[in-house]
Every structure is written in C-alpha cells, then in structure tokens.
C-alpha cells in the first residue's frame, strides 16, 4: 500500500522534475536522488517476492524431514536384554575357582548307586501318582453316568462349569505351621530391578 502510494508520488514528482523545487532536498538519507525512481524501505526490502519459491522450499524441507524420520523408524527397536542369560563378569574370575576334591572309589560308587536308586524311586512315585489320578477320574466318570441315569437335569447341572471356582488360590504347606495372632514386623526394602523401555 505504502509502496503504491510512493510509486504514484514518485511518478508525479518525476513528471515535474524540472520545475520542481525539490532540488537536492535531501531531508533524509532515505531519498537517494530526486530523479531516480523513488524507492522506500518497503520496496527495497522485498517481502512480497517470496510467493512461488518459498512454499516450494517449505514443502521440500518437510519432505526431507519425513524421509529422515522414516529411515529412523525402519531401524528395528533394540531388544531388551534378559538379565538371566547374561553371566555376570564375576563368574569368570579365576581367583574364585574352588579346588575340586578328589573322591575315593567308594564315594563315587555310592554316588552313582544313589542316583540310580533315586531315579527308580521317582519313577515308582510318578506311576503311583498317575494311577491315583486315573482312579479318581474313573470314579467321577462312573458317578456322572449314574447321575445321568437318575435325572437329566441334575446331570446337566453337575456337568456345567463352575464360575466361582477360578481363580483358585490356596497357600501351600510350609515347614512350620502358622503362629496364631502373629504380627509380622514391617520391613523396608530397596527395589533395584532395572526397568527397560523400548
């Protein structure tokens, strides 16, 4: 707006340049010469000329950034290390190796025989466990057959799943029985587990 006004003003002034009394009136250093084209700051500063080039430049910048982002995202995320699988450096310390004791012949024989005895014992234990379970399952199956003979409705009610049973929780046996009315002392602990984020 100001530029247009200035341009018209300069045209008027230049048409009357010869008779004007604007001779060398340099009121301010912004006016370089009377005769030349009057240019003011706004004209020379050139704000308006960024019409086609800048949007294109901005679009180009955005595309370049997007490409960089894609390249970064394509890299697979670093896997969280499983701390149990990494042997700590302490274990490779040679000063820690214990002297291996020398076993007598009787001792090594005793050990071998005990291991074999153990495997036999565990096998028989497993067999009895499996047999007990099979027996109990068979008893239940026969009970259900009998119930079916009695009435269909009761049988269906028996065979339907029990929603309240699971999740089923129970404390197992401990070494000593629980003390009645025992108040456990409050303990503090510092949790030093390492938390990884991906």
């Amino acid at each position, binding site marked *: 707006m100001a530029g247009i006004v200035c341009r018209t003003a300069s045209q008027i002034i230049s048409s009357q340049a010869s008779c004007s009394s604007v001779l060398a009136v340099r009121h301010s250093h912004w006016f370089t010469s009377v005769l030349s084209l009057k240019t003011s700051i706004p004209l020379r500063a050139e704000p308006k000329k960024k019409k086609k080039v800048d949007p294109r430049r901005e679009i180009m910048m955005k595309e370049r950034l997007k490409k960089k982002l894609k390249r970064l995202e394509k890299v697979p995320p670093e896997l969280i290390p499983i701390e149990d699988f990494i042997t700590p450096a302490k274990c490779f310390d040679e000063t820690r190796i*214990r002297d291996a004791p020398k076993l007598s012949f009787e001792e090594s024989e005793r050990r071998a025989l005990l291991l074999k005895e153990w495997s036999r014992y565990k096998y028989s234990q497993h067999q009895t466990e499996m047999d007990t379970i099979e027996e109990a399952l068979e008893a239940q199956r026969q009970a259900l057959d009998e119930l079916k003979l009695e009435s269909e409705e009761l049988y269906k*009610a028996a065979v339907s*799943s029990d929603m309240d049973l699971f999740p089923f929780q129970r404390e197992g046996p401990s070494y000593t029985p629980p003390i009645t009315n025992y108040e456990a002392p409050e303990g503090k602990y510092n949790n030093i587990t390492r938390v990884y984020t991906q």
Partner: protein
Amino acid sequence: MAAPFSRLCRPLWRITTTSTLNKGVRNVSSSRQQWSAQNVKTAGAASPWALNGAVCLQRLPVVSEDGSPIEEEFMELMHLMEFERSLLSDHELRLLEDAARMSRKQEGDYDSDEEDYRDNEIVTAQDLEDIWEQKPKQFQPAPRSQGVDEKDMSSSERCLADSLILLVKKDVGSQKLWLLPQIQWQTGETLRQTAERALASLPGADKKATFLGNAPCGYYKYKYPKVIQKEGSVGAKVFFFKAVLSSHKHLPLEKNSFAWVKKEELQDFLKPEYLKQVRRFIMAL
C-alpha cells in the same frame, strides 16, 4: 457299558436293577417337554433310588512332610555336589583374605604399613557370620507337631503333615455308622447344593469350605434291606462332592460323633463296601 475294570458286585446290580432303571429312563424321556422343575420331580418319582448328597471335606496339609530316608540322602548328595561345583562367593573370599592377613600378622617380619587399611579391620568376615547366625534365633517358629495328641480324632490340628477327612457317626436304620456327612436331596436343588446343605447342617463352628466344581467325584449305591423296601424305593444313591477346608475356628467337636481321619485310618471307621468306593477319589499323595 462294560468297563474294562468292572467290579464283581456291579454286574449283579446291573442285572437286578435294569428293569427298574429302564422304567425310570422311559418316564423321563416322555415328560421332557415339560419345564425343568417338573421334569426333576417326575424323575425323582420315577426312579426307585433315593438321592443323597454327601460332602468329602478335606483339611489339606499345613506342614510339609518329612522326607523318606532316600529323599534325605539324595538331598544331602545334591547339596554336596552343588557345593563342589560352585565358585567362591564374596564372603568366602573375604574369609580367605582375613585368614591370610592373620597368618601374616603372626610372622616375625610383619610390617603393618604394607597393609592397605580398609573397613575389614574392624569387623572381620567371621564376626559377620556369627552375627548372622545369632539373628534368626530371636524368632521362635511354631513347633511342627503342634503338641496335639495324635489319637485325638476330633481335633483338626492332628497330623498337620497329612490331609484329613471329616467323618460323622450317623444312625442308618438300626445301626450307628461312620459316614461322610450326607443329607437327603430335595426337589428343586442341584446335588451340589445338597452337599453344601449337608456341610452347613453339621453342628459346630461354621466351616468355610471351597467346593471343587459342580460334578460329583464319586458315588455309592446301596439297597435297603428287604424289610424296608417298598414299591417305589429299592435303595439309595449317595453322590460325593469334594470340598477343601479354607478356614475355620478351631472349636472342639464331640469325640464320639466326629472324626478327622487320614486315608490310612479310614478302614478302621468305614464299612468295607463303602470304603472301597470312597477310597477311589481320596488322594493321599
């Protein structure tokens, strides 16, 4: 229907009761279009067997069992082998260092300036070990056997290492028999509810029990003696349901009518036929 491991008495039962059972089945199938309650009623009326629900209430072990001799031996061997194959720990290294330092101090040419002083001087590793051993002695755990007389059947604190079953002495006909708590089935309820009712009807403190599922774990069928047998009733069927005792107040029960019994002791209490069926589903592992 012939199971590979059929019992001797079962085929006999099948022969004598097939006729009555078939009648019952036919009646049920004809009235299936009616509603469920009525269906149940007609089924009950048609079959000559009275239905009972019983509960097998187990108090599971509170304390771990002592191992058998071979288990003890094997455990010791495992500890020994693990120890032999292990590396020295920080504490053990410290013990060795202290021992080496002590031996150097005893020697004549001991120059204390060569030692690099650390906190180890004040508290040696051996002292730490002694402190650690003393600390657990301040806590007194409860004794394993709990001091209750093993022969006192009515206490549920006996034999903490085994699972116990609750038995009740009941009048059946003319005799007094030891049974699992049972009660007659009423129309309109499922058998599991009958079993829960049987448990609740026992005198004594309320026993909080978790029933393991809707299905019965076993059954026992018996015929009434000829004198009592009427037109419609031949005998009774008892369906057992398993329940696990979760918590209860330890009030003493009457000695003569209640007993907490291990699986091995069941034979002293129950009749042989009854025992044979009950033993199948009681697992004393």
